[in-house]
């Protein structure tokens, strides 16, 4: 049973003739206790989809449901109580933390009244403060940080405090937008560990959004790969990582540098990310795709099942599957590629 279901969702900014469609038909689902990764280059529409997923933006088509009920935007202040178990952690912690209030109080705001303690207001505020301390400990922060203001914390601490605040209403699903972005290696690893524990122990489902496949693939159960507002591939993480069927997924994997001391330079993907408002005709990825043929330039490939539980949107997914490695490309101009594909190896050291 999925808690969060996004089906056929389109999202546009602006109205009427000036409307610019960013998300162009995305379907995905998050079950309890499951970590679902959503990856893709910056600007492809991940944050836009995230805002639609929690009811901060109204889809221009398609539906978002949470626990079977529609998630409809009513404005930030007036979110329906049935949506409290659906929480979002924004990329910028200041988007969910007020700069002027102490962290402990802000976490306390999130407690649902039924579990915020009973009795007089004194004992309620005491119990809230204790539970705020517990949440801070849960996310690996000292409880003493309750007394601090956001600006008195490091970037990593603020990110965790925002997570603690999102956990206050005991969410069933968390949407996390680029939670790793402001952290360095060890902070990222600590957060990755924490998220795995939260999903495993509390059964929280997560939509984990990031431009960094290297980290997401480490903890996600399933992956969705987004390109210019559409999902191009989807499936269990391990299978996608080992045998991606879409050239874009392969390119994302091949571009990750590994700290193996080999001196190998990862593969660049030709061309630029592009703008989802003006997508190329046919397959949106075709101008950057080493597998592109004529058909790709005119007919958009549908997302189809390629194996049980796996889907890809590529006319040539069978050829992609048959090739052992992603093709190696030479250092290219930053524009769309034209030249032949040759191999450039870094000299051995």
């Amino acid at each position, binding site marked *: 049973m999925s808690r969060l279901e996004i089906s056929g969702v389109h999202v546009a900014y602006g109205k009427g003739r000036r409307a610019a469609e960013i998300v162009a038909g995305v379907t995905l689902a998050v079950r309890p206790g499951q970590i679902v990764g959503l990856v893709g280059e910056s600007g492809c529409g991940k944050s836009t989809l995230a805002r639609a997923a929690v009811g901060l933006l109204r889809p221009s088509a398609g539906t978002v449901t949470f626990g079977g009920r529609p998630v409809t935007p009513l404005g930030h202040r007036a979110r329906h109580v049935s949506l409290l178990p659906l929480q979002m952690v924004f990329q910028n912690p200041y988007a969910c933390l007020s700069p002027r209030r102490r962290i402990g109080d802000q976490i306390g705001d999130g407690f649902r009244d039924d579990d915020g303690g009973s009795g007089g207001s004194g004992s309620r505020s005491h119990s809230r403060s204790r539970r705020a301390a517990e949440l801070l400990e849960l996310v690996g922060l000292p409880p003493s940080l309750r007394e601090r203001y956001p600006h008195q914390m490091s970037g990593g601490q603020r990110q965790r405090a925002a997570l603690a605040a999102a956990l206050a209403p005991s969410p069933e699903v968390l949407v996390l937008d680029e939670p790793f972005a402001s952290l360095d290696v060890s902070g990222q*690893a600590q957060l990755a560990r924490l998220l795995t524990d939260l999903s495993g122990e509390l059964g929280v489902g997560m939509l984990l959004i990031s431009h960094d496949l290297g980290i997401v693939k480490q903890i996600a159960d399933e992956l969705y790969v987004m390109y210019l507002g559409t999902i191009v591939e989807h499936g269990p993480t391990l299978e996608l990582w080992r045998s991606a069927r879409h050239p874009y997924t392969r390119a994302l994997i091949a571009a990750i540098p590994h*700290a193996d001391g080999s001196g190998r330079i990862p593969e660049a993907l030709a061309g630029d990310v592009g703008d989802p408002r003006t997508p190329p005709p046919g397959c949106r990825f075709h101008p950057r795709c080493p597998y592109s043929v004529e058909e790709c330039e005119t007919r958009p490939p549908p997302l189809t099942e390629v194996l049980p539980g796996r889907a890809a949107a590529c006319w040539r997914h069978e050829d992609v599957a048959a090739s052992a490695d992603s093709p190696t490309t030479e250092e290219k101009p930053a524009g769309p590629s034209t030249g032949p594909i040759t191999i450039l190896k870094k000299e051995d050291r």
Partner: protein
Amino acid sequence: MTPVLEIRDLRVKMPTPRGHVTVVDGVDLTAEPESIAGIAGESGSGKTITMLAVLGLLPPDAIVEGSARLAGRELIGLPERELRAVRGRRMAMIFQDPLASLHPMLTIGRQLTDHMRAHLGLGRAKARARAVELLAEVRLPDPAGMLDRHPHEFSGGMRQRVAIAMALACEPEVIIGDEPTTALDVTVQAGILRLLDRLRRESGVTVVLVTHDLGVMSALADTLSVFYSGRVVETGTAGTVLRRPRHPYTAGLLAALPSPEAKVDQGVRPIPGTPPVPGDRPSGCAFHPRCPHGVDQCAVEVPAPVELDDRHRFACPPDPFAAGRTS
């Protein structure tokens, strides 16, 4: 071979409301000609401050001691006028945000030509021709057409290529890149890494590459120095340091990285705790409170560097990863 850049016992104290605190504490670093010297470490470990000290870009109330030589010439204590000449011509810097080195209101062509006319004394036509060459060199499409565009008309990756062209303009001996690819998508980052590698081989420039990303280090760096709390805790060839780290901090950083395999069952293994803040650094080895291999002496003595024959050095006398030891 004379190192292009040689830093010895560099110390920096930065002003804070509670007085000056040491943020760089006795850093040694050598960059050989045409090499890429990598500097890694968690944020706040003093990487940027070290580079700014070398370039003479710290605020005047920062206290800088020790030595930094560019091709034998001492930079620390050089008058501002001379430093400015060094910065323009002989050393250039690339920042994480390319807009930090580009003026938003001026065309790319104007910025490149102004820079070359000021530092190289080129005439207008010559400078313009060279600007086109530079943009082609960093593999921007339609270099001549690019000259009349403004920085905001470019994507992040293209902007970073322009910033690199700007850094190359006066054929400097050293380019310092401070997290030059950290803000980019990996797909775009890989292109910049290839560019830097080619430039190093073709134009013989020495690159000091500062990044917390050990994957990037592995791809490009010839030597690697790992910073922790203002000190170099391990240094050596990048291949050796990454494959056979001897300092527990380096080993911890490597273990914390996502592995090349997906969804491994033992999960992620972060280093526990957080790095110390300057002014509140633990006694002895600054890493000892987070170290799984600590012994009593670590909390007391600042560790002396252990030196192996292949120029591999690390500041951990207990040496838990020595061959034959299990840890």
